[in-house]
């Protein structure tokens, strides 16, 4: 295990050695050291049966930032997202090669507990999927299961506030969640996810089923969640990636073998990906000249 611990942990380890009086200096130094990686995917290839969905993805996800995964349909971005918290395990024929390190621990390691993985790495899906329960119970259900019963009302309120939904639902917490609008339901699903205080939020096209106003609300929400959570979002909408993400990873279908396979083309600061991408394929895609 110790050999797989990435360098940033060693940097952190050194931190206490810096004298207390020079915090100013450390703040200046911070941009120079390597940013803390929550996920570090190394040569990740994913297969569904005989079909290869992704080839050789090397991608670091930085702590506290929003990372957007963009690319055309079928390029494997959702597959990649779902393999970060092992949601693909139940897909028949799923096989992964390479390593996905989460804070230095192999997500697919033999001693790893899948339930624990998802407890720390939450997920919000494309279509809002609230439980057929009350608004309150939707949010309170997972904390109750996890034994977080102390201050449950406060936890539910905080989660709903965190998801920018509190003011709209505070007078009808006992009403069914299915009576909410699509955008409200999706924010409820985000509230449900953050109620158990995960480390990471994975968002799989969270706004693609919503109208522009609800989409705007979700995007504002993501800005407010940034820093508290590390966020990875898959989106079809390039403007959305440009608006919300700190870093953007562009996936595409590349023909290496007999069939096209999802490949990570380029990852960089969002402004760079949309402003001056290094790869011509990225440039074609973000400028709408995809072909």
């Amino acid at each position, binding site marked *: 295990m110790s050999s797989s611990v990435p360098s940033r942990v060693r940097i952190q380890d050194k931190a206490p050695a810096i004298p207390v009086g020079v915090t100013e200096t450390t703040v200046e130094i911070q941009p120079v050291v390597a940013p803390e990686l929550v996920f570090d995917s190394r040569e990740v290839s994913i297969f569904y049966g005989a079909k290869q969905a992704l080839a050789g993805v090397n991608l670091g996800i930085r702590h506290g930032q929003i990372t957007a995964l963009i690319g055309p349909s079928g390029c494997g971005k959702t597959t990649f997202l779902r393999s970060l918290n092992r949601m693909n395990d139940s897909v028949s024929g799923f096989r992964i090669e390479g390593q996905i390190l989460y804070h230095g621990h192999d997500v697919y390691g033999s001693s790893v507990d899948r339930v624990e993985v998802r407890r720390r790495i939450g997920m919000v899906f494309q279509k809002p999927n609230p439980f057929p329960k009350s608004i309150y119970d939707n949010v309170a259900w997972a904390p109750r299961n996890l034994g*977080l019963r102390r201050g449950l009302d406060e936890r539910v309120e905080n989660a709903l506030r965190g998801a920018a939904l509190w003011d709209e639902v505070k007078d009808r917490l006992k009403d069914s969640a299915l009576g909410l609008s699509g955008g409200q339901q999706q924010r409820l699903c985000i509230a449900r996810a953050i109620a158990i205080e995960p480390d990471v939020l994975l968002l799989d096209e969270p706004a693609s089923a919503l109208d522009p106003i609800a989409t705007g609300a979700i995007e504002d929400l993501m800005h407010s969640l940034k820093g508290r959570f590390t966020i990875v979002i898959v989106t079809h909408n390039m403007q959305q990636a440009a608006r919300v993400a700190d870093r953007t990873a562009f996936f595409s279908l590349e023909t290496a073998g007999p069939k096209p396979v999802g490949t990570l083309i380029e990852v960089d600061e969002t402004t760079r990906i949309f402003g001056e991408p290094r790869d011509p394929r990225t440039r074609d895609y973000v400028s709408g000249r995809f072909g």
Partner: protein
Amino acid sequence: MSDPLLPDPTAPLTPSGNLRRRQAVSRITEGAATAAAVVALAALVLVLWTVVSRGAGVISFDFIFKGYPEGVGPMLLGTIVIALLATAIAMPIGVLVALYVTEYSGAKGARTLKLILDLLNGLPSIILGLFAFVFIVEAQEKQTGFAGSVALAIIELPLIARGSQEVLQLVPINLREASDALGVARWRTVLSVILPSALGGIVTSTILAVARAAGETAPLILATSAFDPKKFSVNPFEALPNIPTWIYKVSEEGNPNGYAEAWGMSLVLVFIILVTSLGARALLARSKRKLSS
């Protein structure tokens, strides 16, 4: 982050908080479910094993095809005739009911009809036997295979209708719309688009209904064969011998040879029912694949 139930994100991905306890509960539940599945399987295996081990001894070509008392050919033939006649009565009605439910009745009517079919399916078969006895046997003043077939047809009807209706509902709505948009009348759509797509499923639910009816005993005791007909016959307008009532009769006699005979007939009956059921399910799986792909 002071709560001990909140995990340190950088800790190894082993259970934190109350996960160990939750997993113990989960394992107990899984164990109980598995045990229940094993019990269900064991019951089936035990029944089959009993029938096979006790019945296999008497099975021979003569036992199956010869007349009584060397064989049970007449009972086998009678069962086949009664079941086929019952199906000939139940299938057209059942399919039409299914079509009415899916294509014509509207949501409310469909709900009511489905409820009625389910109630019909839940009726004890002895009551259907009494019905056949009162309305057919008493009227004709004799027991007939036909009376038995009518009782079995009532047993088959809800099975065929519900099974067919479920497959008909699998036929995509846009096929109906495509046909409607071409200005084709609904009955024409039903005949040339919907029924062909659902045919496999309709045949399957019919076979399953036959398998179920073939083993019904109570109605047949009242409707046919209480007076011991033992000869080969395909005429449904006289009392027909059949396997279920014969099993009942010879097991009641307290005669060791009768027991052996009863187990032998049980094996024949179980074999027929298992083969038809399995065949029907294979057919259904195939037609569902065709519909969904």
